[in-house]
C-alpha cells in the first residue's frame, strides 16, 4: 500500500463574499503529524471546513488533492469516503439518532452495500475504543452529541476518528475544553492511530497538546496564509513570544489585514 498524500495548493476561500483564506499551501503524507497554529480569526477553521466541503465556504481558487483525486470535485460524503476526516471545533447535535447507529451507518456507508460490518464486531470495536477514551458505555446509546459537555463532544469526535480510520484527519481545537486527564486520553487515542497510513493536521492554540502528540511540523498561519513552518521548537517559541513577537520577526503588520479585506 502506498503512503497517502494530501496536497493543498494556493487555496483561497471566501465566506459570505469575504475573502478569508488567501493562498494556503500544505503537503502532508501518511505518518506525519502537522500542527497548525495562529491567532483567532486567521482562517484555520475555514481551511478545515473548505477541505471537508462545508456548503458555506466558497473555494475561489486553488487545489486540494487526496492521492491524486481532486477533493473539490467531490461532495462532502465522497470526501469522507475517500479518506478525509474533520474533528470539528463545534460538532453538531443530532437528536433522536444514537451514537452507535450513527457510527454504524457511517462505517457501512464507507464499506459499501453487501460488505457491512458484522454487528458483534462493531460493538466490540466500539467498546474497546470507548474504553481507551474513558467514555462511559452509555454514550453508545445516547443521541449524537445531544447534552454532551464540551469535553465529551471532543472525545466523541476522536471516537469517530478511531472508528472510521481515515487517511487524513484534521483536528480543529480538539484540546479546547478538555481537562488534563481527558487531554491525555484524547492524545492516547490519536497516537494509537499513528501509522504510515494516517496523517494528521492538528489545529491548536496551545503547546500543551503537542507535548502529548509530537508533531513533525509546526505551521504558523496569519491573515489567511501560512507564514512560517518549522519543527516542534516553533510551538515552544510561540508560547514564549506570543504572536506579536512572531509578527515583528516576520515583519507583518496588522494593517495588512484591513487593507486586504
Amino acid at each position: 500500500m502506498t503512503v497517502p498524500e494530501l496536497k493543498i495548493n494556493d487555496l483561497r476561500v471566501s465566506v459570505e463574499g469575504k475573502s478569508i483564506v488567501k493562498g494556503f499551501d500544505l503537503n502532508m503524507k501518511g505518518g506525519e503529524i502537522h500542527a497548525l497554529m495562529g491567532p483567532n480569526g486567521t482562517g484555520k477553521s475555514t481551511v478545515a471546513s473548505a477541505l471537508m466541503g462545508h456548503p458555506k465556504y466558497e473555494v475561489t481558487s486553488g487545489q486540494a488533492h487526496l492521492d491524486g483525486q481532486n477533493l473539490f470535485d467531490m461532495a462532502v460524503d465522497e470526501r469522507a469516503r475517500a479518506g478525509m476526516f474533520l474533528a470539528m471545533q463545534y460538532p453538531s447535535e443530532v437528536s433522536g439518532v444514537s451514537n452507535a447507529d450513527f457510527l454504524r451507518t457511517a462505517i457501512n456507508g464507507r464499506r459499501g452495500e453487501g460488505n457491512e460490518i458484522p454487528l458483534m464486531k462493531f460493538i466490540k470495536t466500539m467498546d474497546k475504543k470507548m474504553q481507551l477514551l474513558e467514555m462511559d458505555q452509555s454514550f453508545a446509546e445516547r443521541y449524537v452529541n445531544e447534552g454532551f459537555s464540551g469535553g465529551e463532544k471532543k472525545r466523541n469526535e476522536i471516537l469517530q476518528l478511531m472508528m472510521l480510520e481515515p487517511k487524513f484527519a484534521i483536528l480543529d481545537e480538539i484540546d479546547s475544553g478538555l481537562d488534563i486527564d481527558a487531554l491525555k486520553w484524547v492524545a492516547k487515542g490519536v497516537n494509537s492511530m499513528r501509522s504510515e497510513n494516517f496523517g494528521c493536521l492538528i489545529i491548536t492554540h496551545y503547546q500543551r497538546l503537542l507535548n502529548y502528540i509530537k508533531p513533525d511540523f509546526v505551521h504558523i498561519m496569519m491573515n489567511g496564509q501560512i507564514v512560517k513552518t518549522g519543527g516542534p521548537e516553533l510551538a515552544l517559541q510561540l508560547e514564549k513570544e506570543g504572536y506579536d513577537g512572531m509578527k515583528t520577526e516576520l515583519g507583518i503588520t496588522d494593517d495588512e489585514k484591513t487593507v486586504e479585506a
Partner: protein
Amino acid sequence: MSMQLKKLPFGAEEIIKFAEKRKEPKWFTDTRLKGLGLAEELPLPKPEKTRIADWNFTNFSYQIGSSVVSQLNELPESIQNLMKNGEEAANVLIHVNSSAVYSQLSKELTDQGVIYTDLATAVREHSDLLANYYFKTTSIGKHQLTAMNAALVNGGTFLYIPKNVVIEQPIQAVYYQDAPSSGLVAHTVVVAEQSSSVTFVESYLSDSSVGEGAANLVNEVIVGENAQVKYGAVDEFTDQIVTYVSRQAEVAKDGRIQWALGQMNDGNTLSENATNLEGDGAAADIKAVSIGSGTQKQNFDNYVRHVGKATQSQLLVRAAQKDASNSIFNARTKIEHGASGADGEQTQRVLMLSDDARGDANPILLIDEYDVIAGHAASVGRVDPDQLYYLMSRGIKQELAEKLIVEGFLAPIVDLLPIEGVRRQLTTLIERKVG
C-alpha cells in the same frame, strides 16, 4: 350563508334493515336514526385552513364483513406481522372489513371482570353498560361526520376495566380493510373505572384493493377517578381512503391519560383529538407524530380543555412534510375559569422536506383563569444544514443522512409507544414513508 347539502347515498329503510340483521337493541337503532336525521341537516366540519368540501366522506359501502377465523395464520400477512412477538397476540381483537374475526383475552382478565369485545357484540350483550358511555364524550350532532358515525357504525371495540383492576399486559385492536370501495365506520369505547389502569393500542391498516374508500372513526375514552389509560394508535390507511378520526377523552379527578398517536395515513385525513380534564388533578400527556407525503392533505386538531383545579397537560406534536403534502396542525389549550393551578404546555414542530410541501402549526391558548401556567411553542423549519453536513462529513450519503435526521426528529414520540410490536410497526412505517 347556507351550503348546498348533497343528498346522502343512504336512507332510513336500509339502516333499519342493517340494524335488524345485527340484532341491535332499540336504543341503538334509535341512535342510528337520530344520526341519520342530523347527517342530512348538518354541514361538514370546518377545519381551519383545510378545504375538505370535495373529500369523499360519504360514498362507500358500509355493509361489508368477513368471517371468523380460528387461527392467526389464516389472516392477511400484514396483520400477522403485527403479531410476531406473541406479547401482542395475548389480548387482541382483530377486525377485517369492519367485523371481528379473531379475539383473545386472557382468562385472568376475564375473571377480573374485564370486558373486551367488538362493538356489535357489546351492543347485544352489554347493552345497558355501553349505553352509559356511547356518545358521551362527544355529541352526535357535532357535525355531519359524527352524525354519520352514529347512523352507519359497522365496527368498533368496547373495552371495560372494572374498579381497581390494574392490567400490565397491553390490549390491542387491529382493523384491516381490503373490500373494494369499503368504509370502516367504527366506534370505540374504552372505560377505565376508578383506580384501574390499562394500556390500549389500536392499529388501522388497509390494502390497496380497497381503492377509493373511507374511514369514519369515533373513539371515546372515559378515565375514572385516579385511573390511568395509555392509549396508543397507529393509523396507516392507503392513499385513496379518506379518514375522519376523532379521539376523545374525559378524565375524572386525579385520572391520567397518555395519548401516543402515530398518524401515518397516506390519504386525506381530518383528525380531532380532544381531552377534557374535568376532575381536579386530572392530567393528559399527548404525543403525536405524522408524515405527510404525496399530495395528501391533512388537518390535525389537538385540543385540551382544563376544567378541574391543578389539571396538567403536555402536548407534543412532531411532523415531517414531504413531496407536495399539505398539513395543518392546530394545538388548542383551553383553561376554563375556576381551573386554578392548571398547567398546560404545548409544543408543535414541523420539519419541511420539500419546497412543494406545506405545513402550518397554529398554537392557540385560551385562558380564563389567573393562577395558571401555560406555554406554547410552534415551529416550522427545514433540515438543519449543519446537521446534514456533520453526518455527511462522516461518509453518510445525503439521502441517508436526511433520513436519519427525520427519523431522529420523530423518535422521541415513537420511543414512547407502549407496545414493542407497535413501535416496530411505526418505525418501519416511518422508514418507508421517509425513504
